[in-house]
């Protein structure tokens, strides 16, 4: 994986977000540094849903936050709706923020337990002085309705009175209050029960259509992103492994890591062949990543070339890019 390169970027007029060579570095113990995100490029066309998939520590959340400039990336470019965010002074960046909103993994802790739900959802509108009190209140009711909650029942209650799934609905209502163009969802259903997961995934699809959103959907679960995404990007140790439309990616994973991920999903079918652990070990430390392809230490197909040279993203079929010297 490792790969770098921009072969997968598109030259469409409707590109709303274009990220090039973005790197995020954190200081680590002993004067070392960790490149959590290491030279990643991606783009998003208006109305698309891009899924970013990988295991803990692959840099997927850091990448999502770096797009929002939280914190600003160490280097690289993030162009959103025609503006270069990395170069914007703080005050101007603040003016762009309503257009990019985020929802988080743990919906309960991401809501203020002291505020009523009406206040939670109204807060962004109040901060930006949108409308007068009556207009804001109408907008809150409309948002709560659209995420499937009864305004009369929930308005005056507080977040601790709700289940995880309902709190995630409230978070979505709040994120949509300022009518964003781009919504970054960081593991939005990982903390929820399976039966509720599907409700929230369907709600996100509905909201996307209703409000014309573009989505970035960060998840560790390949099965969850299958239904919702137009493009899937697989990450490992801060690099891109593979990027493709969902059907092609699952039917013909070209990267050995993607193949292992697909093979690791437990199937609810006792007659399916038991998925023998397809790869061994765990990801190495990002403080001291392997040379060349970062996946080579766990890869069944690794050769000397993989240690010497970092693979670049190349197109294996239309719209399907992989960074591997020996694609499957």
């Amino acid at each position, binding site marked *: 994986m490792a790969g770098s390169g921009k072969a997968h970027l598109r030259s469409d007029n409707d590109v709303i977000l274009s990220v090039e060579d973005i790197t995020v570095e954190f200081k680590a113990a002993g004067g070392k540094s960790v490149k959590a995100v290491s030279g990643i490029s991606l783009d998003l066309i208006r109305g698309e849903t891009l899924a970013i998939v990988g295991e803990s520590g692959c840099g997927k959340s850091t990448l999502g936050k770096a797009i929002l400039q939280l914190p600003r990336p160490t280097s690289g470019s993030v162009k959103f709706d025609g503006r270069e965010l990395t170069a914007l002074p703080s005050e101007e960046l603040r003016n762009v923020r309503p257009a990019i909103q985020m929802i988080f993994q743990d919906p309960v802790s991401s809501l203020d337990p002291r505020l009523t739900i009406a206040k939670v959802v109204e807060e962004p509108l109040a901060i930006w002085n949108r409308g007068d009190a009556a207009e804001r209140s109408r907008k809150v009711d409309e948002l709560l309705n659209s995420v499937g909650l009864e305004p009369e029942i929930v308005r005056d209650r507080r977040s601790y009175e709700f289940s995880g799934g309902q709190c995630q609905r409230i978070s979505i209502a709040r994120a949509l209050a300022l009518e964003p163009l781009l919504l970054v969802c960081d593991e939005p259903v990982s903390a929820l029960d399976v*039966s509720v997961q599907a409700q929230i995934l369907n709600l996100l699809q509905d909201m996307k259509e209703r409000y014309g959103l573009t989505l970035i959907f960060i998840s560790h679960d390949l099965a969850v992103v299958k239904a919702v995404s137009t493009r899937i990007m697989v990450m490992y140790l801060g690099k891109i492994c593979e990027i493709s439309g969902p059907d092609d990616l699952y039917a013909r994973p070209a990267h050995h890591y993607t193949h292992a991920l697909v093979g690791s999903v437990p199937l*609810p079918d006792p007659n399916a062949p038991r998925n023998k652990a397809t790869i061994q070990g765990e990801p190495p430390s990002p403080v001291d990543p392997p040379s060349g392809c970062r996946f080579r230490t766990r890869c069944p197909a690794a050769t000397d070339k993989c240690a010497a040279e970092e693979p670049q993203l190349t197109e294996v079929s239309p719209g399907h890019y992989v960074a591997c010297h020996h694609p499957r």
Partner: protein
Amino acid sequence: MTSLLSIHDLHVSFDTPRGLLQAVRGVDLEVPAGTSVGIVGESGSGKTVLSRAAMGLLQGKNVQRTGTVVFDGKELTALPPDEVRNEFGTGMAMIFQDPMTALNPVRRIGSQISEGLRVRLGLSRADAMKRSAELLALVRIPDPQGMLRKFPNQLSGGMRQRVMIAIAIACNPKLLFADEPTTALDVTVQAQILELLSELRAELGMSMVLVTHDLGVVANHTDIVTVMYAGLVVEQAPTRRLFANMKMPYTEALMKSIPRLDQPSGGRMPMIAGRLPDPTAPEPGCPFAPRCPYVVDKCRSSVPPLVSDGDGHSYRCWLPLGGGI
């Protein structure tokens, strides 16, 4: 088949400020010797409370427990706490969901594994350390000697879960409770740990109760599945038979709502509307009735009994899928 663990009419309730929370409402469960039994359910279904109560781990003024738990011929529910403890380690052992918090952060791995060996089996310090290294090798940890000297914070999640398993199997328990053992782990590591548990079970002749919310996990790693909803067993069958012939609408709905790799992309996901009932105020009828697509009047007025087809498949439904017995 003789049962290693036999639970009969177990009720567990907690006194809470909001009233009596009925977490487990009359559960019968048999774990035949040598088998792996899966307990499946969503948060709040009572699956964890059931497994803790079976081990006698729930005590205190605010806990009310009735029913019987018989393990290996001994009625645990009738024993004083000290004697129940005698079963821990050699009789039954447990591994938990979060390997990050289940290990003691200020003690070396070697001392944490050898603790049980010294207390339960009376091994000397040196012998216990030697056995600890063997156990680490058994759970496929490379360089077991080096691992003995490490602290938990030096290990990844998968390695910590392997250490937890080594501690649990140290005294050769007859029954291992695994409560969501892979939920906190990455998917590639999850596959490795589940495989390890299945191999160890075969090698050591251990029985297992695997508690999970994931039907995908039980499909390949259990012999019998028990599905719980709102503190009740709603369906129970040998694993293959359950997946081939689901009788309870809840099991079917749970199955359909699992995101699958082979579903078409871009479509809507099948879902279960609504949510679990309030455990402090159970409704009179079937607990799944408010969310059930096949609900009829009878479902709202009385709880269906758990009926068995005489062949190990039982379910709790007035209108079982594919017809009744």
